[in-house]
C-alpha cells in the first residue's frame, strides 16, 4: 500500500508559519518582547558586575569569558521562549481539556507533534541578542575559528538536554493533571546558568552538575568557546544529552499507558 507522507520538515514548517501568523496579531507584544530580552540581559550583566565587584576576574573567569556564559544562557532562553514554552507548556492543557486525544489520533509521532506544534517569535530577540553577545565575548576572550566550530557540539547537546528535561517534566502532567508550574520550577533552577558554575559554593555546584545539570547547559559550551574546553566534559555533555533524549522518549511512552482521556 502506498500512502502519501508529508515530509517532516514541511509539516514543521507549516506548523511554524501558522503560529507565527497567530502571534504577530499582537503588535504591542513585539515591542514588549524586545524590551523583555533587553532588560533580561541588562539584569544579568548588572548582577554579574556586582559579583565581580570591579575586579578583573572572579572564580577563574574573566569578565569577557563570563559574558560568553551570559550569551549562551540568552540563546537557551530564546529557545525556551520560542519552542519549549509554546509547546511543552501546553501539554498540561491538552491533558486537562482532553485534547491530547486529538494529538494521539494524528498519524504523526505524538512527541514530535507536541514538541513542534507551535513557535513563538517572541523568543527570536533573545536568540539574536544571545548569538551576538556570545560571538563578541568569545572573540574578545581570544577564541579562534576552531573553538567556535567545536562549541557547536556542546551547544547542540545543551539544547537537547534542556529540551529533554522540559519534556520529561511536562509529561508528568499525564498523572498530575493540575500541575501547571512544574516547568516553572525548572526555569527557575536553569536561571542558575546565568553565571558560570564555578561562582557557586561546593554544595550548589554539585546540585547544578549532577542533579539539575545546569553546568552542561551554559558552562561547558562557554568553556569550549573560550578555548578551555576539555574533551572529557564535551563527551560527557553529548552522553548526557543522548541519555536524556532516550529517557524522555521512553518516559513519554510509559506515561501514555496511564493516560485516561478527560471525561468531558
Amino acid at each position: 500500500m502506498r500512502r502519501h507522507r508529508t515530509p517532516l520538515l514541511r509539516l514543521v514548517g507549516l506548523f511554524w508559519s501558522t503560529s507565527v501568523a497567530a502571534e504577530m496579531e499582537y503588535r504591542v507584544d513585539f515591542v514588549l518582547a524586545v524590551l523583555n530580552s533587553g532588560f533580561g540581559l541588562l539584569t544579568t550583566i548588572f548582577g554579574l558586575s556586582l559579583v565581580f565587584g570591579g575586579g578583573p576576574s572572579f572564580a577563574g573567569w574573566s569578565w569577557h569569558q563570563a559574558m560568553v556564559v551570559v550569551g549562551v544562557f540568552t540563546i537557551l532562553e530564546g529557545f525556551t521562549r520560542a519552542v519549549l514554552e509554546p509547546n511543552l507548556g501546553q501539554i498540561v492543557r491538552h491533558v486537562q481539556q482532553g485534547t491530547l486525544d486529538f494529538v494521539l489520533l494524528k498519524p504523526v509521532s505524538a512527541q514530535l507533534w507536541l514538541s513542534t506544534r507551535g513557535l513563538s517569535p517572541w523568543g527570536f530577540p533573545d536568540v539574536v541578542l544571545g548569538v551576538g553577545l556570545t560571538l563578541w565575548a568569545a572573540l574578545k576572550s581570544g577564541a579562534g575559528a576552531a573553538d567556535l566550530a567545536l562549541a557547536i557540539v556542546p551547544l547542540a547537546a545543551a539544547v537537547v538536554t534542556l529540551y529533554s528535561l522540559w519534556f520529561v517534566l511536562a509529561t508528568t502532567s499525564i498523572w498530575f493533571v493540575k500541575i501547571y508550574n512544574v516547568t516553572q520550577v525548572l526555569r527557575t533552577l536553569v536561571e542558575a546558568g546565568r553565571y558560570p558554575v564555578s561562582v557557586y559554593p561546593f554544595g550548589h555546584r554539585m546540585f547544578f552538575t549532577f542533579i539539575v545539570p545546569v553546568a552542561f547547559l551554559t558552562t561547558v559550551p562557554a568553556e569550549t568557546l573560550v578555548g578551555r574546553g576539555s574533551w572529557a566534559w564535551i563527551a560527557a555533555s553529548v552522553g548526557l544529552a543522548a541519555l536524556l533524549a532516550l529517557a524522555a522518549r521512553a518516559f513519554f511512552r510509559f506515561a501514555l499507558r496511564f493516560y485516561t482521556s478527560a471525561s468531558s
Partner: protein
Amino acid sequence: MIGRALRQARALLSVRYAEMLEYRAELVLWMLAGSMPLILMGVWMKVAATRPLGLEPVDFARYFLVLFLVRQATVVWVIWEFQEKVLTGALSQRLLQPIDPVWNEVAKHVAERFARLPFVVVLVALFFALYPDARWVPHPWALLSGLLLTIAAFAVRFAIQYTLSMMAFWTERAGSLQSVWFHLYVLFSGMLAPLSMYPESVRTFAELTPFPYLVYVPVAATLDHPAFPVDVPRACAVMAAWGVAFVVLNRVLWRRGLRQYSGMGA
C-alpha cells in the same frame, strides 16, 4: 454595612482557602519556583568568602533567607488570571455579581498565603538544620516592623500588578508587560544583591522607584543590621503614597477598560 463586608470577606476567604488546599502539590512547586534567592545566596556567600565586603557569608545567608520569605509572602499572580478572564470572557460572570471582581482575587491571594505557610516553615526548618550557623533570633521590634512592611509590600505589589492587568482590556497579552516589569523588579528591588552593594548612582535611581520597597526594605527592617540601613517610618509613608497612586490609577483604568471590554462584546 461593615457586617455585610465581614460576612462576604469570611465566605470568600474560607472558600478560597479550601480551593487552595486542593492545590497542595502546586503550592510546593510555586514555592520552589521562588527559590532564586537561595541560588543567589550561594553566589554571595562565595563572594563574601573571596574578598572583604564588610559582611560575613552568614550575613548573606540571612539576607537571602529573609528575602526568600518576603518574596513568598508577597507573591502576586493576579495579572495572569485577570488576563485569562478577559480573553475568555469569564470576567462577564464576575461583572454580573454585585461585588467588585477584585475582591475575589484578593481573597485568593490572601488564602494562598495561609495555605503555603506550612510548606515554607518546613523549608526554613530544613535550611537551619543544614546550615546551623545562620540561625539567629531577630529583635521583636525588627520582626514586627519587617512583618508590617511585608504586608504593605504585598498590598503595593498587588495594586501595581492589578493596575498592569488593566492593560488586558487593550492588548491581548498584558502578561508580556508583566515580564518586562519583573525584570525591572529583579534589577532594582535588591533581589540580585543587597541594595547597599549597588553603585551609588543606581541605588539613588532605584530609591525613586517603588521596587526597593517591595523587597529590600522589608528584608532590611527584619534584619536590623547596620550594613542594611532603612528608615522605617519614611518607608511606610513612601509605600502608602505609591499604594494610593496605583489604586487611583487602577480605578481610572478599570472604568475605561470596562467600556472597552463591553465594546469588544464582553
